[in-house]
Every structure is written in C-alpha cells, then in structure tokens.
C-alpha cells in the first residue's frame, strides 16, 4: 500500500498547501509591514550574536584538530561528516494521539525513512514516511518513540521514551544507584544506529527514588522547541559507519 500512498501524497500535498496559505500570508504581511527601526534593531542584535559565535568558532579549529589527534591515538572511528538541509514544517498530524509533523521536503530532495531531524536547540525526531514533495516526521515525544541517549556529564547510557506529552520524556529502567541529577543534559548516544551521536535531546527534570519501585522514575524536558519551530534541519549521514574487524594488536585489518 505504501507506493499507492506515496502517489496519493500529491492530493495530500495540495490540501496541506491550502491549509498553509494563512500562515504564508501572515509571513508575507509580516515581511511587508516591518518598520525600518525594527529591522535595524534586529540587524544589530544578529550582528552581536554573530560576533559571539565567531569568537567561539575561533577556538573550534584547534579543539577539533586536538580531538581528531586524540581519537587517532585511541584508534576510534572518525567523526562522520554530516550535511544538513533546511526544511519547513507545513503541517501537523490531525490525530491528537500522534505527535507527527509534516515537512516540505520529500524523496525528490533525497529524504529517506529514518532520517533525523533537528532544530536550533536539539533533536526533534525522525522521518517515518516519505512522499515526493513532503514527509512525515515522528517527534521524540510520541508515545511510540524511544531514543538511546547518554548523560553528557558522565556518559551513563539510558533510553528516553516519549509519553505523549510535548514537554516530557521518561527514562526507562534507570536503577536507583545510577548517578543522575536534575539538570543533567541528555545527548543522543548514536547506539541505535539511527540518530547521529552528540545532539542534545533533553534536560533531566525530576529524579524520584521510590523504595517501593524497582527503578528510579526520571523525567526529562526535550530541548527542541517541538511546537514552536517552523524551520528545521534534516541531517544527512554522508558516510554510514563502516564496521571493520579489529585485530588483536588494535590495528584495523586490511579488507
């Protein structure tokens, strides 16, 4: 049925195009009727922000080089080069029980099922269905979604599950002795081979140790602006990780 659906996606696309007209019109009006002073203020603020980011990038180069050297010393795999494409959210799933959004990039732009989606603040979800001009994205807070994460502070691994609440994730099977605190940053660990490693996912909200329960109850708040973002980034994994057998002396075997 999926190819049929992909073809019918064109009808769907036209309906969503119509429903998107009011917000497009709003954007257009907003662009036309901005005062000069607002634009100047915004420009100044952006320049300031750019300056701050540029300062951070200055050190990036040396840190990156150092990181590569250290990784070579440890003989671990290289960081993957990731390409991103900006997409726009132009529809929300009408089903109240599903946290899905529709973006305006499809198979014509090279989008594939399982592709991760991020916004400016963190990981948003993954593509679950692709048609020529649009694709459906399952958000990390959907009650059928789970993502492998680790705590940025100490590297403890966990699985963050959606519970159907836009502002909450739950960590599954965290034992009471695990070092986890409120305010810990959870980043994607890349273990599921689906999401790239190192993207911020959520911040730990509450940790409840109940002696009557086998596991601690840990809830976290997603970093990404799941119901505010309009422009999002699709991450392309240029090179899938290659698995090479490792010899006993730690040098990768020649294929």
């Amino acid at each position, binding site marked *: *049925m999926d190819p049929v*659906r992909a073809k*019918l996606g064109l*009808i*769907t696309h036209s*309906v*969503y195009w*119509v*429903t*998107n007209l009011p*917000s497009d019109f709003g954007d257009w009006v907003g662009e036309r009727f901005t005062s000069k002073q607002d634009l100047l203020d915004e420009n100044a603020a952006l320049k300031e922000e750019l300056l701050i980011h540029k300062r951070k990038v200055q050190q990036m180069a040396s840190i990156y080089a150092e990181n590569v050297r250290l990784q070579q010393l440890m003989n671990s795999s290289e960081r993957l080069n990731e390409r991103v494409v900006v997409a726009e959210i*132009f*529809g*929300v*799933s*009408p*089903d*109240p*029980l*599903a*946290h*899905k959004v529709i973006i305006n990039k499809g198979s014509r732009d090279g989008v594939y099922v399982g592709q991760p989606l991020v916004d400016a603040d963190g990981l948003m979800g993954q593509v679950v*269905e692709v048609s020529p001009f649009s694709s*459906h994205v399952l958000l990390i807070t959907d*009650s*059928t979604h789970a993502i492998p994460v680790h705590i940025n502070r100490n590297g403890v691994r966990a699985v963050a599950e959606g519970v*159907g609440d*836009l502002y909450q994730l739950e960590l599954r099977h965290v034992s009471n002795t695990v070092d986890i605190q409120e305010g810990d940053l959870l980043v994607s660990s890349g273990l599921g081979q689906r999401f790239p490693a190192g993207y911020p996912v959520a911040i730990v909200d509450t940790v409840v140790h109940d002696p009557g329960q086998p596991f601690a109850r840990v809830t976290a708040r997603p970093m990404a602006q799941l*119901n505010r973002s309009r422009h999002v980034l699709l991450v392309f994994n240029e090179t899938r990780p290659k698995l090479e057998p490792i010899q006993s002396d730690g040098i990768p075997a020649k294929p």
Partner: protein
Amino acid sequence: MEFQQNPNIVIVVLSFFLALALSVLPLPLNWAWFRPEFVALLVIYWVMALPDRMGVGMAFGVGLVQDVVENAVLGQHALALVAVAYVCVLSYRRIRNYALWQQSAWVFVLIGIHQLFCNWVHSLTGPASQSLIFLVPALVSALIWPMMLIAMEWLRIRTQSSRF
C-alpha cells in the same frame, strides 16, 4: 430543510474539500482534541439534505480520501463514516423535524459513534485514548452543528442548479 433535489455537484465537492482542509489545519497539539469532525458533520448534513443522492457509498469514498489526507489507517474513517451515514439514512425523516438543539443532541450521538469507531481502529493499530476524552470532538461538533446547518442551507439553496 427544503425538499429540493437539484444539488450543484460543485458545491458538494467544494464543501468536502473545505472540510478536509479544515480537518488538517495545523492546530497546537494541546488543542487537537477541540477540533470538530468537519467531514463527519458534512456527511450527516448531505445525507439529511439529499437522502436519495447521498448515502453510504458517498460516505465510504469520502472516508477513504480523508484517510489518505490525514495519513490514517486506510479505511478507518471510511468505516466510521459508513456507520454514521447508515444511521442517518435510517433516521433523516425524524431528525429533519427536530428543533436545532435537538438535532445537536442527535449529532452528538452520531459523531460519538464516529469517534468510537476511530478509537477502536486506533486501539488495534497503536495508542488509543484511555479515557472518554475522545468524545470531546463529538461535543464540539454538536455545538457548531446549528451554525453549520444554517450556513450550508443558505449556500445550497443559493447555488442549486436545474441541470440535473
């Protein structure tokens, strides 16, 4: 309701397209339960207005289109709308003579049936609502029924053609 049997087919198609667009209009996820079931309301309206032209078959077709547009399980809305249209076809003679608020109560029951079918399919394929919250769209639909009825009657009588 007028007992005029010359519908303008363009108006029927356009009204359903508009209802489909309204049923996927982006809403904040926290508000999604308060969206009326526009397509089901329209099916009820057209069956009651033109019972000898609109019936279960029309409901099935519209339901399939709605499934495609909403990306639901194929047949979910078709099943629910067929049930609603069938009850409508059986009962339209009585309902037409009801007062508006009584019709609203009846619409609440019909959309409730629709929601029950949808929730049933949900529970077979994935997460379903655990409480009676899935009846909220039925309540909202019942509240907008009088407005929709008056607007659609005005539109239908203005546009009916004599070509059929």
